[in-house]
């Protein structure tokens, strides 16, 4: 590790000559990229594993990075919370972010979102692919909205396909005015058996 280039140096990041895997991006850029897509706090040990670097080296870099973001007064911040590292918005930007978040969301759900919610409610736990197959329309982004709005949540993965499964939440029941899922009215009884086959055929993943 002795000949390792300074990962903080933005100008000439090239060629870490040693075995350290990274031909292109340095440690700093690698951490930034991974943390950008991480949807929950990432423990140092995980980062060290993915990057194939010693844990203390990674930790030092994370601290340096967090300090530099603060020094540069960036709108984001790197913090260790709940045993892992994650990007957060900087405190003094919160009012703007709040405005952005509350402006961007509609009170009412779209028809597509309602239909997707209905399929999840009656087929849960169910994967996105299956819901898409049932509706004949891709529902990935609609499902994200439903999760964001707290109506639907993840419920493990399908043991066969590994696909993430979704179910409705307590908040959903509350909004519909029901005490429990058992209170959902029965579906009209005309669903033919073979719809399963159609779905299986179409469900990717």
């Amino acid at each position, binding site marked *: 590790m002795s000949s390792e280039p300074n990962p903080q140096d933005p100008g000439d990041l090239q060629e870490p000559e040693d075995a350290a895997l990274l031909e292109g991006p340095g440690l700093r850029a690698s951490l930034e*990229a991974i943390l*950008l*897509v*991480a*949807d929950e706090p990432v423990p140092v040990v995980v980062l060290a594993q993915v990057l194939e670097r010693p844990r203390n080296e990674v930790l030092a870099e994370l601290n340096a990075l967090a300090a530099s973001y603060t020094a540069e007064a960036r709108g984001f911040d790197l913090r260790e919370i709940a045993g892992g590292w994650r990007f*957060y*918005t900087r405190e003094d930007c*919160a009012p703007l*972010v*709040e405005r952005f*978040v*509350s402006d961007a*969301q509609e*009170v*009412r*759900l779209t028809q597509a979102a*309602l*239909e*997707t919610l*209905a*399929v999840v*409610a*009656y*087929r849960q736990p169910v994967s996105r692919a299956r819901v898409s197959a*049932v*509706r*004949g329309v891709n529902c990935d982004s609609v499902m*994200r909205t439903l*999760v*964001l*709005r*707290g*109506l639907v949540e993840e419920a493990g993965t399908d043991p066969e396909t590994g696909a993430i499964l979704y179910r409705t939440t307590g*908040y959903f029941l509350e*909004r*519909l*005015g*029901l005490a429990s899922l058992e*209170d*959902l*009215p*029965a*579906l*009209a009884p*005309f*669903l*033919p058996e*073979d*719809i399963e086959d*159609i779905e299986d055929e179409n469900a990717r993943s």
Partner: protein
Amino acid sequence: MSMDGALGDPGGGTESPPRASGSGASFEVHLDVFEGPFDLLLALISKHKLDITEVALSQVTDEFIAYISERSDDWDLDQVSYFLVVAATLLDLKAARLLPSGEVEDEEDLALLEARDLLFARLLQYRAYKEVAAIFAARMTAAARRFPRRVPLEPRFAQLLPEVLLGLGPAEFARLASLALAPKPPPKVSTEHIHAPVVSIKEQARVIAALLAELGRASFRQLTVNAADSYEIVASFLALLDLYRDDAVTFEQVTPLGDLYVTWTGHWDADSVNELTESDG
């Protein structure tokens, strides 16, 4: 099915590419990779290292027809109809090349030229989209190396989201679910789940040959007036292509998409017709 390419003038044939001759031979390209007749035409033309010209069309006509014939057992109707339209045009053009070349004066020749230009135009058009499709594929591969930020809101912000208004009660919600879960009506004219009933092309060839030997000349419409279904019509058309290849019939089509007239050449006798049923099957 024999393919000795006895289709009149083999188009000047200076080049003699590996032709499909005999039942085993096939094109260098895999048969089932073509995305339709234009794709096939482009592949054949580029195989011969030709530009998209009249000569090129004429040179690949035999192979185009041979391709259709060879696959005649597993076509579905949707696919084959497009190939047949192109095949008919190609055959017309091929036939026209046998005419003494002179000034184009009459209506028929003009119509034929129009059909040819149309075919070129569509071929070029298809090629343009195909090129762009390749660019799409490359761009998608490149874009897949960039990952967008798409993470859940920090809890403090998630709390700010306004309450959701569903705007319907349980009963309406259940109705919505029933509708959403109901099997969608299959989009019209989809035949992909239909297994084509077995229609023997040889059998159709025999029927048509017998009819034509008697009538001498008839329109395709006449020949298929008794067809039980569209599969039989398609089989009849394929059979005609076989007969054409074997020099038993000639075609005339005055206008593109107009009636196709078939004339018995008289080169065949009753025995040849009977052999049809025995040759293979």
